[in-house]
Protein backbone atom coordinates (compact mmCIF):
# COMPACT_ATOMS: atom_id res chain seq x y z
CA UNK A 1 0.00 0.00 0.00
CA UNK A 2 1.53 3.26 -1.06
CA UNK A 3 1.73 5.85 1.61
CA UNK A 4 -0.47 8.69 0.58
CA UNK A 5 -2.83 9.97 -2.06
CA UNK A 6 -2.14 13.56 -1.16
CA UNK A 7 1.60 14.04 -1.15
CA UNK A 8 1.53 17.82 -1.58
CA UNK A 9 0.57 18.34 2.08
CA UNK A 10 2.23 15.62 4.13
CA UNK A 11 0.18 14.92 7.19
CA UNK A 12 0.87 12.92 10.30
CA UNK A 13 -1.03 9.70 10.27
CA UNK A 14 -2.63 8.92 13.58
CA UNK A 15 -1.16 5.64 14.79
CA UNK A 16 -4.35 4.43 16.38
CA UNK A 17 -6.89 6.38 14.45
CA UNK A 18 -9.87 5.28 16.56
CA UNK A 19 -10.13 7.84 19.29
CA UNK A 20 -6.93 9.62 18.29
CA UNK A 21 -7.24 13.16 19.54
CA UNK A 22 -6.83 15.85 16.92
CA UNK A 23 -4.65 17.82 19.31
CA UNK A 24 -1.82 15.34 18.71
CA UNK A 25 -1.57 16.24 15.05
CA UNK A 26 0.55 19.18 13.96
CA UNK A 27 -1.48 22.14 12.74
CA UNK A 28 -3.92 21.30 15.46
CA UNK A 29 -6.95 23.37 16.08
CA UNK A 30 -7.77 23.88 12.41
CA UNK A 31 -10.13 21.17 11.20
CA UNK A 32 -9.56 19.72 7.74
CA UNK A 33 -13.12 20.68 6.92
CA UNK A 34 -15.86 22.34 8.88
CA UNK A 35 -19.43 23.22 8.05
CA UNK A 36 -20.03 25.81 10.74
CA UNK A 37 -23.56 26.54 12.04
CA UNK A 38 -25.09 25.78 8.63
CA UNK A 39 -28.68 26.85 7.99
CA UNK A 40 -30.34 26.30 4.64
CA UNK A 41 -32.63 24.21 2.43
CA UNK A 42 -33.39 23.47 -1.21
CA UNK A 43 -34.50 26.29 -3.48
CA UNK A 44 -37.10 28.54 -1.91
CA UNK A 45 -38.34 25.84 0.48
CA UNK A 46 -38.02 25.83 4.25
CA UNK A 47 -34.79 25.25 6.13
CA UNK A 48 -33.74 21.63 6.41
CA UNK A 49 -30.55 22.42 8.29
CA UNK A 50 -30.90 24.55 11.42
CA UNK A 51 -27.53 25.67 12.68
CA UNK A 52 -25.92 22.31 12.11
CA UNK A 53 -22.15 21.99 12.56
CA UNK A 54 -20.05 19.22 11.02
CA UNK A 55 -16.29 19.18 11.49
CA UNK A 56 -13.58 16.69 10.49
CA UNK A 57 -10.02 16.72 11.77
CA UNK A 58 -7.15 15.77 9.47
CA UNK A 59 -6.88 12.04 8.80
CA UNK A 60 -9.98 11.20 10.80
CA UNK A 61 -13.30 9.59 10.03
CA UNK A 62 -16.48 11.49 10.81
CA UNK A 63 -19.86 9.86 10.45
CA UNK A 64 -23.27 11.52 10.26
CA UNK A 65 -26.15 9.35 11.48
CA UNK A 66 -29.71 10.06 12.43
CA UNK A 67 -33.30 9.13 11.71
CA UNK A 68 -34.83 9.38 8.25
CA UNK A 69 -35.38 12.95 7.16
CA UNK A 70 -32.96 14.34 9.73
CA UNK A 71 -31.00 16.12 7.01
CA UNK A 72 -27.96 13.81 6.94
CA UNK A 73 -27.47 13.85 3.18
CA UNK A 74 -28.51 17.49 3.08
CA UNK A 75 -25.79 18.37 5.58
CA UNK A 76 -23.23 16.65 3.37
CA UNK A 77 -24.53 18.36 0.23
CA UNK A 78 -24.35 21.69 2.06
CA UNK A 79 -20.71 21.05 2.97
CA UNK A 80 -20.02 20.25 -0.69
CA UNK A 81 -21.83 23.34 -1.98
CA UNK A 82 -24.74 21.57 -3.62
CA UNK A 83 -27.21 23.79 -1.82
CA UNK A 84 -26.76 27.40 -0.83
CA UNK A 85 -26.57 28.28 2.83
CA UNK A 86 -28.64 31.06 4.36
CA UNK A 87 -26.39 31.22 7.42
CA UNK A 88 -23.11 29.69 8.43
CA UNK A 89 -19.89 28.97 6.59
CA UNK A 90 -17.83 26.10 5.19
CA UNK A 91 -14.07 26.20 5.68
CA UNK A 92 -11.52 23.86 4.14
CA UNK A 93 -8.32 23.82 6.21
CA UNK A 94 -9.18 27.29 7.49
CA UNK A 95 -10.04 28.82 4.10
CA UNK A 96 -13.61 30.01 3.62
CA UNK A 97 -15.05 28.13 0.62
CA UNK A 98 -18.74 28.95 1.24
CA UNK A 99 -19.08 30.77 -2.07
CA UNK A 100 -17.38 28.10 -4.23
CA UNK A 101 -19.25 25.80 -6.62
CA UNK A 102 -18.94 22.03 -6.09
CA UNK A 103 -16.60 21.83 -9.10
CA UNK A 104 -14.34 24.51 -7.63
CA UNK A 105 -14.31 22.60 -4.33
CA UNK A 106 -13.10 19.51 -6.19
CA UNK A 107 -10.20 21.56 -7.48
CA UNK A 108 -9.51 22.68 -3.89
CA UNK A 109 -9.09 19.09 -2.72
CA UNK A 110 -12.54 17.83 -1.84
CA UNK A 111 -13.96 14.66 -3.36
CA UNK A 112 -17.53 13.47 -3.25
CA UNK A 113 -19.00 10.02 -3.90
CA UNK A 114 -22.75 10.33 -4.46
CA UNK A 115 -25.04 7.59 -3.16
CA UNK A 116 -26.33 6.57 -6.60
CA UNK A 117 -25.15 7.09 -10.18
CA UNK A 118 -21.63 7.37 -8.88
CA UNK A 119 -19.80 5.63 -11.74
CA UNK A 120 -19.68 5.93 -15.54
CA UNK A 121 -21.44 2.65 -16.33
CA UNK A 122 -20.59 2.53 -20.05
CA UNK A 123 -16.88 3.15 -19.51
CA UNK A 124 -14.24 0.71 -18.34
CA UNK A 125 -12.96 0.73 -14.78
CA UNK A 126 -9.71 2.28 -15.93
CA UNK A 127 -11.51 5.01 -17.88
CA UNK A 128 -13.58 5.74 -14.77
CA UNK A 129 -10.37 6.33 -12.84
CA UNK A 130 -8.95 8.45 -15.67
CA UNK A 131 -12.06 10.62 -15.63
CA UNK A 132 -11.69 11.01 -11.87
CA UNK A 133 -8.28 12.52 -12.52
CA UNK A 134 -9.56 14.77 -15.31
CA UNK A 135 -8.45 17.95 -13.55
CA UNK A 136 -4.89 16.71 -13.17
CA UNK A 137 -2.35 17.39 -15.86
CA UNK A 138 0.50 15.41 -14.29
CA UNK A 139 1.18 11.68 -14.45
CA UNK A 140 -1.66 9.76 -12.85
CA UNK A 141 -0.09 6.31 -13.10
CA UNK A 142 1.07 6.29 -9.46
CA UNK A 143 -2.30 7.29 -8.07
CA UNK A 144 -3.96 4.68 -10.24
CA UNK A 145 -1.58 2.03 -8.95
CA UNK A 146 -2.43 3.09 -5.40
CA UNK A 147 -6.14 2.72 -6.08
CA UNK A 148 -5.51 -0.72 -7.57
CA UNK A 149 -3.50 -1.65 -4.48
CA UNK A 150 -6.38 -0.53 -2.30
CA UNK A 151 -8.99 -2.36 -4.38
CA UNK A 152 -7.11 -5.28 -6.01
CA UNK A 153 -10.24 -6.63 -7.70
CA UNK A 154 -10.39 -3.46 -9.82
CA UNK A 155 -6.98 -4.21 -11.31
CA UNK A 156 -8.32 -7.52 -12.62
CA UNK A 157 -11.44 -5.86 -14.02
CA UNK A 158 -9.85 -2.69 -15.34
CA UNK A 159 -10.78 -3.35 -18.98
CA UNK A 160 -14.38 -4.24 -18.13
CA UNK A 161 -17.26 -1.74 -18.34
CA UNK A 162 -17.97 -0.55 -14.80
CA UNK A 163 -21.70 -1.13 -15.32
CA UNK A 164 -21.07 -4.88 -15.49
CA UNK A 165 -19.59 -5.08 -11.98
CA UNK A 166 -21.36 -6.15 -8.78
CA UNK A 167 -22.74 -3.61 -6.31
CA UNK A 168 -19.73 -3.78 -3.99
CA UNK A 169 -17.26 -3.52 -6.87
CA UNK A 170 -19.13 -0.52 -8.26
CA UNK A 171 -18.77 1.21 -4.90
CA UNK A 172 -15.03 0.49 -5.06
CA UNK A 173 -14.89 2.07 -8.51
CA UNK A 174 -16.81 5.07 -7.17
CA UNK A 175 -14.43 5.54 -4.25
CA UNK A 176 -11.43 4.93 -6.50
CA UNK A 177 -12.63 7.55 -8.98
CA UNK A 178 -12.95 10.07 -6.16
CA UNK A 179 -9.46 9.27 -4.86
CA UNK A 180 -7.88 10.00 -8.25
CA UNK A 181 -7.86 13.76 -7.61
CA UNK A 182 -5.68 13.11 -4.52
CA UNK A 183 -8.21 14.85 -2.26
CA UNK A 184 -7.59 16.01 1.30
CA UNK A 185 -11.19 15.31 2.24
CA UNK A 186 -13.27 12.40 0.91
CA UNK A 187 -17.03 12.58 1.35
CA UNK A 188 -19.14 9.43 1.02
CA UNK A 189 -22.93 9.45 0.85
CA UNK A 190 -24.10 6.08 2.18
CA UNK A 191 -21.29 4.02 0.62
CA UNK A 192 -22.76 0.75 1.87
CA UNK A 193 -26.34 1.28 0.66
CA UNK A 194 -27.55 -1.85 -1.07
CA UNK A 195 -24.48 -4.05 -0.56
CA UNK A 196 -24.33 -7.29 1.43
CA UNK A 197 -23.09 -7.29 5.06
CA UNK A 198 -19.81 -8.99 4.09
CA UNK A 199 -19.13 -6.44 1.36
CA UNK A 200 -20.07 -3.70 3.82
CA UNK A 201 -17.44 -4.85 6.33
CA UNK A 202 -14.85 -4.95 3.55
CA UNK A 203 -15.76 -1.47 2.38
CA UNK A 204 -15.43 -0.11 5.91
CA UNK A 205 -11.99 -1.76 6.18
CA UNK A 206 -10.96 -0.03 2.96
CA UNK A 207 -12.30 3.29 4.20
CA UNK A 208 -10.17 2.95 7.34
CA UNK A 209 -7.19 2.23 5.10
CA UNK A 210 -7.87 5.40 3.09
CA UNK A 211 -8.07 7.40 6.32
CA UNK A 212 -4.68 5.96 7.37
CA UNK A 213 -3.10 7.57 4.31
CA UNK A 214 -4.03 10.94 5.78
CA UNK A 215 -7.25 11.66 3.96
CA UNK A 216 -10.08 12.97 6.13
CA UNK A 217 -13.36 11.18 5.61
CA UNK A 218 -16.89 12.38 6.07
CA UNK A 219 -19.58 9.75 5.70
CA UNK A 220 -23.36 9.57 5.89
CA UNK A 221 -24.47 6.08 6.90
CA UNK A 222 -27.69 4.15 7.37
CA UNK A 223 -25.84 1.30 9.07
CA UNK A 224 -25.30 3.50 12.11
CA UNK A 225 -23.87 0.91 14.49
CA UNK A 226 -21.13 -0.37 12.19
CA UNK A 227 -20.30 3.12 10.98
CA UNK A 228 -19.94 4.52 14.49
CA UNK A 229 -17.58 1.68 15.35
CA UNK A 230 -15.00 3.01 12.90
CA UNK A 231 -15.79 6.70 13.49
CA UNK A 232 -13.41 9.04 15.26
CA UNK A 233 -16.31 11.37 15.57
CA UNK A 234 -20.03 10.79 15.18
CA UNK A 235 -22.75 13.32 14.59
CA UNK A 236 -26.33 12.43 15.40
CA UNK A 237 -28.63 14.84 13.57
CA UNK A 238 -32.27 15.37 14.41
CA UNK A 239 -34.36 17.82 12.37
CA UNK A 240 -31.27 19.48 10.96
CA UNK A 241 -29.69 20.12 14.38
CA UNK A 242 -26.79 18.48 16.17
CA UNK A 243 -28.48 16.21 18.71
CA UNK A 244 -25.37 14.35 19.92
CA UNK A 245 -21.72 14.76 19.02
CA UNK A 246 -18.98 12.60 20.43
CA UNK A 247 -16.47 9.92 19.47
CA UNK A 248 -18.10 7.01 17.71
CA UNK A 249 -17.36 4.71 20.64
CA UNK A 250 -18.91 7.10 23.17
CA UNK A 251 -22.04 7.49 21.08
CA UNK A 252 -22.40 3.73 20.84
CA UNK A 253 -22.23 3.54 24.65
CA UNK A 254 -24.52 6.49 25.28
CA UNK A 255 -27.83 5.11 26.58
CA UNK A 256 -29.84 8.00 25.07
CA UNK A 257 -28.36 7.49 21.62
CA UNK A 258 -28.80 3.73 21.88
CA UNK A 259 -32.40 4.05 22.88
CA UNK A 260 -33.40 6.57 20.24
CA UNK A 261 -31.35 5.65 17.21
CA UNK A 262 -29.67 2.30 17.55
CA UNK A 263 -32.67 0.26 18.64
CA UNK A 264 -31.72 -0.36 22.31
Amino acid sequence: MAQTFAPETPRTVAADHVGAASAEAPGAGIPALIGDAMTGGYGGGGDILNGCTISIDPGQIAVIVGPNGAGKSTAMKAVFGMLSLRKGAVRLAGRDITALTPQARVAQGMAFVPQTHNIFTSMTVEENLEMGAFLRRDDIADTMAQVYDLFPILRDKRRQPAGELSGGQRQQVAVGRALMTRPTVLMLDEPTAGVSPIVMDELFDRIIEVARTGISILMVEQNARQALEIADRGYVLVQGRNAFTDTGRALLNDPDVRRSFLGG
Partner: protein
Amino acid sequence: MDALNALVALANFVVIPATAYGAQLSLGALGVTLIYGILRFSNFAHGDTMAFGTMATILFTWVLQGAGISFGPLPTALLALPVGIAITALYVLATDRVVYRFYRKQRAAPVILVIVSMGVMFVTNGVVRFIIGVDDRNFDDGTRFLISARDFRNWTGLDEGLALRSSQAITVVTAVLVVALLFWFLTCTRTGKSMRAFSDNEDLALLSGINPERVVAITWIIVAALATVAGVLYGLDKSFKPFTYFQLLLPIFAAAIVGGLGSPLGAIAGGFIIAYSEVAVTYAWKKVANYALPERFEIDGLGQLLSTDYKFAVSFAILVIVLLFRPTGLFRGKSV
Protein backbone atom coordinates in the same frame (compact mmCIF):
# COMPACT_ATOMS: atom_id res chain seq x y z
CA MET B 1 -24.42 -17.64 -66.61
CA ASP B 2 -27.90 -16.57 -65.50
CA ALA B 3 -26.92 -16.83 -61.86
CA LEU B 4 -23.92 -14.58 -62.53
CA ASN B 5 -26.11 -12.12 -64.40
CA ALA B 6 -28.52 -12.10 -61.46
CA LEU B 7 -25.68 -11.37 -59.05
CA VAL B 8 -24.29 -8.59 -61.23
CA ALA B 9 -27.71 -7.00 -61.66
CA LEU B 10 -28.26 -7.26 -57.89
CA ALA B 11 -24.90 -5.62 -57.19
CA ASN B 12 -25.49 -2.93 -59.77
CA PHE B 13 -29.00 -1.91 -58.81
CA VAL B 14 -29.21 -2.78 -55.12
CA VAL B 15 -25.93 -3.43 -53.31
CA ILE B 16 -23.82 -0.55 -54.64
CA PRO B 17 -26.44 2.21 -54.46
CA ALA B 18 -27.70 1.04 -51.06
CA THR B 19 -24.17 0.86 -49.64
CA ALA B 20 -23.40 4.41 -50.73
CA TYR B 21 -26.76 5.66 -49.45
CA GLY B 22 -26.25 3.72 -46.19
CA ALA B 23 -22.86 5.36 -45.66
CA GLN B 24 -24.44 8.80 -46.16
CA LEU B 25 -27.30 8.02 -43.75
CA SER B 26 -24.85 6.61 -41.19
CA LEU B 27 -22.83 9.81 -41.15
CA GLY B 28 -26.03 11.82 -40.75
CA ALA B 29 -27.31 9.53 -38.00
CA LEU B 30 -23.96 9.76 -36.18
CA GLY B 31 -24.45 13.52 -35.91
CA VAL B 32 -27.99 13.09 -34.58
CA THR B 33 -26.92 10.45 -32.10
CA LEU B 34 -23.98 12.53 -30.78
CA ILE B 35 -26.25 15.51 -30.14
CA TYR B 36 -28.73 13.22 -28.45
CA GLY B 37 -26.10 11.59 -26.27
CA ILE B 38 -24.42 14.77 -25.13
CA LEU B 39 -26.91 17.64 -25.43
CA ARG B 40 -29.83 15.30 -24.74
CA PHE B 41 -32.29 16.32 -27.41
CA SER B 42 -33.31 15.25 -30.91
CA ASN B 43 -31.87 17.82 -33.26
CA PHE B 44 -34.44 18.42 -35.99
CA ALA B 45 -32.18 20.98 -37.61
CA HIS B 46 -29.69 18.28 -38.60
CA GLY B 47 -30.95 17.83 -42.16
CA ASP B 48 -30.67 21.55 -42.73
CA THR B 49 -27.25 21.65 -41.07
CA MET B 50 -26.24 19.15 -43.78
CA ALA B 51 -27.74 21.47 -46.40
CA PHE B 52 -25.87 24.44 -44.93
CA GLY B 53 -22.58 22.55 -44.93
CA THR B 54 -23.08 21.40 -48.50
CA MET B 55 -23.97 24.93 -49.55
CA ALA B 56 -20.82 26.33 -47.93
CA THR B 57 -18.75 23.63 -49.64
CA ILE B 58 -20.37 24.30 -53.05
CA LEU B 59 -19.74 28.03 -52.74
CA PHE B 60 -16.07 27.44 -52.00
CA THR B 61 -15.91 24.85 -54.80
CA TRP B 62 -17.02 27.60 -57.19
CA VAL B 63 -14.30 29.86 -55.83
CA LEU B 64 -11.71 27.13 -56.46
CA GLN B 65 -13.08 26.41 -59.93
CA GLY B 66 -13.03 30.12 -60.70
CA ALA B 67 -9.36 30.21 -59.72
CA GLY B 68 -8.74 27.25 -62.04
CA ILE B 69 -7.86 24.83 -59.23
CA SER B 70 -9.01 21.25 -59.61
CA PHE B 71 -8.43 18.01 -57.72
CA GLY B 72 -7.45 15.89 -60.73
CA PRO B 73 -9.86 13.00 -61.21
CA LEU B 74 -11.48 13.68 -57.83
CA PRO B 75 -14.29 16.23 -57.41
CA THR B 76 -13.11 19.73 -56.46
CA ALA B 77 -15.71 19.67 -53.67
CA LEU B 78 -13.47 17.34 -51.65
CA LEU B 79 -10.81 20.05 -51.70
CA ALA B 80 -13.38 22.60 -50.54
CA LEU B 81 -14.68 20.29 -47.80
CA PRO B 82 -12.44 21.55 -44.95
CA VAL B 83 -13.54 25.13 -45.59
CA GLY B 84 -17.18 24.03 -45.71
CA ILE B 85 -16.72 22.23 -42.39
CA ALA B 86 -15.13 25.28 -40.80
CA ILE B 87 -17.94 27.60 -41.93
CA THR B 88 -20.60 25.14 -40.76
CA ALA B 89 -18.85 24.72 -37.40
CA LEU B 90 -18.92 28.48 -36.93
CA TYR B 91 -22.59 28.53 -37.87
CA VAL B 92 -23.65 25.79 -35.41
CA LEU B 93 -21.49 27.28 -32.65
CA ALA B 94 -23.24 30.60 -33.27
CA THR B 95 -26.68 28.97 -33.07
CA ASP B 96 -25.58 27.29 -29.84
CA ARG B 97 -24.41 30.58 -28.38
CA VAL B 98 -27.50 32.52 -29.48
CA VAL B 99 -30.21 29.90 -29.03
CA TYR B 100 -29.43 26.60 -27.33
CA ARG B 101 -27.24 27.91 -24.52
CA PHE B 102 -30.10 29.98 -23.15
CA TYR B 103 -32.26 26.89 -22.75
CA ARG B 104 -29.38 24.79 -21.45
CA LYS B 105 -28.78 27.30 -18.64
CA GLN B 106 -32.44 26.97 -17.70
CA ARG B 107 -32.11 23.19 -17.81
CA ALA B 108 -35.05 23.11 -20.22
CA ALA B 109 -36.82 19.80 -20.82
CA PRO B 110 -35.67 17.84 -23.91
CA VAL B 111 -39.01 18.35 -25.63
CA ILE B 112 -38.56 22.12 -25.43
CA LEU B 113 -35.12 21.80 -27.02
CA VAL B 114 -36.67 19.69 -29.79
CA ILE B 115 -39.13 22.49 -30.56
CA VAL B 116 -36.29 25.01 -30.37
CA SER B 117 -34.29 22.92 -32.84
CA MET B 118 -37.28 23.02 -35.20
CA GLY B 119 -37.06 26.79 -35.06
CA VAL B 120 -33.36 26.59 -35.89
CA MET B 121 -34.30 24.18 -38.69
CA PHE B 122 -36.70 26.67 -40.30
CA VAL B 123 -34.23 29.53 -40.01
CA THR B 124 -31.36 27.45 -41.44
CA ASN B 125 -33.65 26.25 -44.19
CA GLY B 126 -34.44 29.86 -45.09
CA VAL B 127 -30.81 30.96 -44.91
CA VAL B 128 -29.69 28.19 -47.28
CA ARG B 129 -32.43 28.89 -49.83
CA PHE B 130 -31.78 32.60 -49.59
CA ILE B 131 -28.07 32.20 -50.28
CA ILE B 132 -27.92 29.45 -52.91
CA GLY B 133 -31.51 29.15 -54.14
CA VAL B 134 -33.97 26.26 -54.23
CA ASP B 135 -32.81 24.63 -57.48
CA ASP B 136 -31.23 21.27 -58.02
CA ARG B 137 -27.48 21.63 -58.39
CA ASN B 138 -24.91 19.18 -59.63
CA PHE B 139 -21.42 20.00 -58.44
CA ASP B 140 -19.60 16.74 -59.15
CA ASP B 141 -16.82 17.67 -61.58
CA GLY B 142 -14.57 14.63 -61.17
CA THR B 143 -14.32 11.49 -63.27
CA ARG B 144 -17.81 10.09 -63.59
CA PHE B 145 -17.18 6.32 -63.49
CA LEU B 146 -14.61 4.01 -61.99
CA ILE B 147 -16.18 1.13 -63.89
CA SER B 148 -18.75 1.82 -66.58
CA ALA B 149 -21.49 -0.64 -67.50
CA ARG B 150 -20.29 -0.95 -71.09
CA ASP B 151 -16.65 -1.64 -70.14
CA PHE B 152 -17.80 -4.22 -67.64
CA ARG B 153 -19.89 -5.99 -70.29
CA ASN B 154 -16.98 -5.97 -72.70
CA TRP B 155 -14.56 -7.38 -70.13
CA THR B 156 -16.80 -10.11 -68.83
CA GLY B 157 -19.02 -10.94 -71.77
CA LEU B 158 -22.05 -10.94 -69.50
CA ASP B 159 -25.40 -9.46 -70.57
CA GLU B 160 -25.62 -7.34 -67.47
CA GLY B 161 -23.37 -4.39 -66.84
CA LEU B 162 -21.96 -3.26 -63.53
CA ALA B 163 -21.37 0.45 -63.06
CA LEU B 164 -19.43 1.89 -60.17
CA ARG B 165 -19.62 5.65 -60.10
CA SER B 166 -16.64 7.39 -58.55
CA SER B 167 -18.96 9.33 -56.22
CA GLN B 168 -20.11 6.02 -54.77
CA ALA B 169 -16.59 4.80 -54.19
CA ILE B 170 -15.60 8.17 -52.69
CA THR B 171 -18.64 8.04 -50.40
CA VAL B 172 -17.76 4.67 -48.94
CA VAL B 173 -14.03 5.38 -48.58
CA THR B 174 -14.63 8.79 -46.97
CA ALA B 175 -17.30 7.39 -44.63
CA VAL B 176 -14.96 4.61 -43.46
CA LEU B 177 -12.16 7.13 -42.82
CA VAL B 178 -14.44 9.56 -40.97
CA VAL B 179 -16.00 6.85 -38.81
CA ALA B 180 -12.59 5.38 -37.95
CA LEU B 181 -11.36 8.84 -36.98
CA LEU B 182 -14.45 9.48 -34.86
CA PHE B 183 -14.15 6.18 -32.99
CA TRP B 184 -10.46 6.72 -32.40
CA PHE B 185 -11.24 10.16 -31.03
CA LEU B 186 -14.00 8.92 -28.73
CA THR B 187 -12.11 5.93 -27.30
CA CYS B 188 -8.49 7.02 -27.26
CA THR B 189 -8.27 10.74 -26.56
CA ARG B 190 -8.79 12.51 -23.25
CA THR B 191 -11.32 14.89 -24.79
CA GLY B 192 -13.22 12.05 -26.46
CA LYS B 193 -13.37 10.12 -23.21
CA SER B 194 -14.63 13.19 -21.39
CA MET B 195 -17.40 13.45 -24.00
CA ARG B 196 -18.40 9.84 -23.36
CA ALA B 197 -18.27 10.44 -19.60
CA PHE B 198 -20.49 13.51 -19.99
CA SER B 199 -22.94 11.53 -22.08
CA ASP B 200 -22.93 8.66 -19.57
CA ASN B 201 -23.43 10.63 -16.35
CA GLU B 202 -23.56 14.41 -16.55
CA ASP B 203 -23.55 15.08 -12.79
CA LEU B 204 -20.58 12.84 -12.13
CA ALA B 205 -18.74 14.38 -15.07
CA LEU B 206 -19.20 17.79 -13.45
CA LEU B 207 -17.92 16.38 -10.14
CA SER B 208 -14.85 15.11 -11.99
CA GLY B 209 -14.09 18.61 -13.21
CA ILE B 210 -15.14 18.12 -16.84
CA ASN B 211 -16.11 21.50 -18.31
CA PRO B 212 -19.58 21.11 -19.83
CA GLU B 213 -19.33 24.11 -22.16
CA ARG B 214 -16.14 22.74 -23.68
CA VAL B 215 -17.71 19.32 -24.22
CA VAL B 216 -20.75 20.94 -25.85
CA ALA B 217 -18.61 23.11 -28.14
CA ILE B 218 -16.48 20.17 -29.29
CA THR B 219 -19.63 18.13 -29.89
CA TRP B 220 -21.04 20.85 -32.13
CA ILE B 221 -17.81 21.06 -34.11
CA ILE B 222 -17.76 17.29 -34.66
CA VAL B 223 -21.43 17.31 -35.58
CA ALA B 224 -20.84 20.13 -38.07
CA ALA B 225 -18.03 18.09 -39.65
CA LEU B 226 -20.15 14.93 -39.84
CA ALA B 227 -23.15 16.83 -41.26
CA THR B 228 -21.04 18.59 -43.89
CA VAL B 229 -19.30 15.40 -44.98
CA ALA B 230 -22.62 13.52 -45.12
CA GLY B 231 -24.28 16.34 -47.06
CA VAL B 232 -21.44 16.74 -49.57
CA LEU B 233 -21.23 12.99 -50.18
CA TYR B 234 -24.99 12.81 -50.72
CA GLY B 235 -24.82 15.81 -53.05
CA LEU B 236 -21.95 14.31 -55.06
CA ASP B 237 -23.77 10.98 -55.33
CA LYS B 238 -27.15 12.48 -56.27
CA SER B 239 -27.49 16.24 -56.40
CA PHE B 240 -27.89 19.17 -54.03
CA LYS B 241 -31.38 20.48 -53.44
CA PRO B 242 -32.23 22.08 -50.08
CA PHE B 243 -35.68 20.47 -49.89
CA THR B 244 -34.27 16.96 -50.38
CA TYR B 245 -31.92 17.51 -47.46
CA PHE B 246 -34.81 18.54 -45.26
CA GLN B 247 -36.58 15.31 -46.27
CA LEU B 248 -33.49 13.27 -45.35
CA LEU B 249 -34.34 14.00 -41.71
CA LEU B 250 -36.78 11.08 -41.55
CA PRO B 251 -34.45 8.28 -42.74
CA ILE B 252 -31.64 9.77 -40.64
CA PHE B 253 -33.74 9.78 -37.48
CA ALA B 254 -35.06 6.33 -38.30
CA ALA B 255 -31.45 5.14 -38.62
CA ALA B 256 -30.40 6.71 -35.31
CA ILE B 257 -33.42 5.32 -33.45
CA VAL B 258 -33.20 1.85 -35.01
CA GLY B 259 -29.58 1.64 -33.88
CA GLY B 260 -30.35 3.11 -30.46
CA LEU B 261 -30.14 6.86 -29.84
CA GLY B 262 -26.84 7.79 -28.24
CA SER B 263 -24.99 4.77 -29.62
CA PRO B 264 -22.50 5.63 -32.40
CA LEU B 265 -22.20 1.99 -33.48
CA GLY B 266 -25.99 1.80 -33.61
CA ALA B 267 -26.19 4.85 -35.85
CA ILE B 268 -23.95 3.15 -38.42
CA ALA B 269 -25.85 -0.13 -38.32
CA GLY B 270 -29.16 1.77 -38.45
CA GLY B 271 -28.03 3.76 -41.47
CA PHE B 272 -27.30 0.63 -43.47
CA ILE B 273 -30.47 -1.15 -42.32
CA ILE B 274 -32.64 1.77 -43.44
CA ALA B 275 -30.76 2.22 -46.73
CA TYR B 276 -30.91 -1.47 -47.69
CA SER B 277 -34.59 -1.72 -46.72
CA GLU B 278 -35.48 1.38 -48.69
CA VAL B 279 -33.67 0.27 -51.83
CA ALA B 280 -34.81 -3.36 -51.56
CA VAL B 281 -38.47 -2.49 -51.11
CA THR B 282 -38.60 0.09 -53.89
CA TYR B 283 -36.45 -1.80 -56.43
CA ALA B 284 -38.19 -3.49 -59.35
CA TRP B 285 -36.97 -7.08 -58.94
CA LYS B 286 -38.17 -8.36 -62.32
CA LYS B 287 -34.75 -8.49 -63.94
CA VAL B 288 -32.92 -10.17 -61.06
CA ALA B 289 -35.82 -12.58 -60.45
CA ASN B 290 -36.01 -13.66 -64.08
CA TYR B 291 -32.28 -14.37 -64.16
CA ALA B 292 -32.40 -16.31 -60.92
CA LEU B 293 -35.67 -18.23 -61.29
CA PRO B 294 -36.28 -21.17 -63.65
CA GLU B 295 -38.06 -20.19 -66.87
CA ARG B 296 -41.55 -21.39 -65.91
CA PHE B 297 -41.61 -19.15 -62.82
CA GLU B 298 -40.75 -16.01 -64.78
CA ILE B 299 -42.65 -12.95 -63.69
CA ASP B 300 -44.32 -10.44 -65.98
CA GLY B 301 -44.89 -7.64 -63.48
CA LEU B 302 -42.20 -5.25 -62.26
CA GLY B 303 -41.73 -7.14 -59.00
CA GLN B 304 -41.67 -3.84 -57.18
CA LEU B 305 -43.16 -3.85 -53.68
CA LEU B 306 -43.53 -0.09 -53.39
CA SER B 307 -43.19 2.81 -55.79
CA THR B 308 -40.11 4.94 -55.16
CA ASP B 309 -42.44 7.85 -54.39
CA TYR B 310 -43.28 6.03 -51.18
CA LYS B 311 -39.72 5.33 -50.10
CA PHE B 312 -40.15 7.39 -46.93
CA ALA B 313 -42.88 4.99 -45.84
CA VAL B 314 -40.16 2.36 -45.49
CA SER B 315 -38.15 4.31 -42.89
CA PHE B 316 -41.35 5.23 -41.17
CA ALA B 317 -42.57 1.63 -40.98
CA ILE B 318 -39.21 0.43 -39.63
CA LEU B 319 -39.22 3.25 -37.10
CA VAL B 320 -42.68 2.27 -35.83
CA ILE B 321 -41.80 -1.42 -35.63
CA VAL B 322 -38.59 -0.75 -33.68
CA LEU B 323 -40.30 1.66 -31.31
CA LEU B 324 -43.02 -0.93 -30.65
CA PHE B 325 -40.81 -3.93 -30.05
CA ARG B 326 -37.44 -2.58 -29.01
CA PRO B 327 -37.79 1.08 -28.02
CA THR B 328 -34.13 1.51 -27.05
CA GLY B 329 -32.96 0.31 -30.47
CA LEU B 330 -30.76 -2.57 -31.57
CA PHE B 331 -27.70 -1.38 -29.64
CA ARG B 332 -29.52 -0.43 -26.43
CA GLY B 333 -29.32 3.34 -26.64
CA LYS B 334 -31.02 5.69 -24.24
CA SER B 335 -34.74 6.17 -24.05
CA VAL B 336 -36.10 9.61 -23.30
